[in-house]
């Protein structure tokens, strides 16, 4: 039974857009159909791991076993401040904002 292969679960790689702005990186992942509490985002060893399991809802409205799983991992650049990461899930899109550490922000030096 438990041979490590989960029957019927489809592993998918979510499509991602990454934009670098002056102060942050914005990461957007398409994860349609996920319940917010089934989405996990973790930072470990300078990498960001995102996973979400998707269940189907039958006619009775009862939740099934997960049928799909989205997984993706990103290596973080060393200018990312791991303490201020923000994640929002809306309309099937997970948006993660990774702020840059203050010392990496562009600054203007005034001439005295």
């Amino acid at each position, binding site marked *: 039974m438990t041979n490590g292969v989960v029957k019927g679960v489809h592993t998918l790689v979510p*499509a*991602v*857009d*990454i*934009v*670098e*702005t*002056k102060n942050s*990186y*914005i990461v*957007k992942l*398409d*994860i*349609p*159909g*996920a*319940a917010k509490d089934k989405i996990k985002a973790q930072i470990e060893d300078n990498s960001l791991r995102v996973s979400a399991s998707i269940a189907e809802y039958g*006619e009775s409205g009862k939740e099934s076993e997960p049928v799909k799983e989205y997984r993706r991992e990103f290596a973080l650049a060393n200018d990312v401040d791991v303490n201020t990461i923000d994640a929002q*899930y809306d*309309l*099937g*899109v997970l948006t993660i904002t990774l702020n840059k550490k203050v010392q990496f922000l562009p600054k203007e030096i005034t001439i005295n």
Partner: protein
Amino acid sequence: MSLIKRNPTQEMTRWSNEFPAFRGLESLRRDMNRIFDEFFRGDVLADETFFGRDWTPAVDVMENNDSYVLKAELPGMNKDDVKITLENNVLTIRGEKKNELEKKEGNFQRVERSYGVFERSFTIPGTIKSNDIDAQYKDGILTLTLPKAEEAKPKLIDVKVK
């Protein structure tokens, strides 16, 4: 002047009768037709459009006893940007997803998500109650429930054995 509608099949057959070399072509044509017929047969809702769109949302179609259920993945879309129409038993979902990141100042490091115009059409095989179509949009998934009309539902007829 007479206008005669061109019939390629007939022409083909005439050619192959007169020139044996064309027989191979004729049988190839039949094979191609058969392959196409088989490819589209058995598809509960045959997909009608392939062109004129920037991306194609993934769609699941299920058939129950009472209804057809269609689920389309439209992550990041606003409900108001999706239009659903039913015309001559052809259901069409179309819309446009605007790239909200373009407005932000920044450099794209990766762009994998789809943007732009999409359109998908499906021919509904049986009769449905077109006034009772239900459309829900949640978490980036559009779910359409098309209830079958009474005459399209599978019937169980009890045959009395005398």
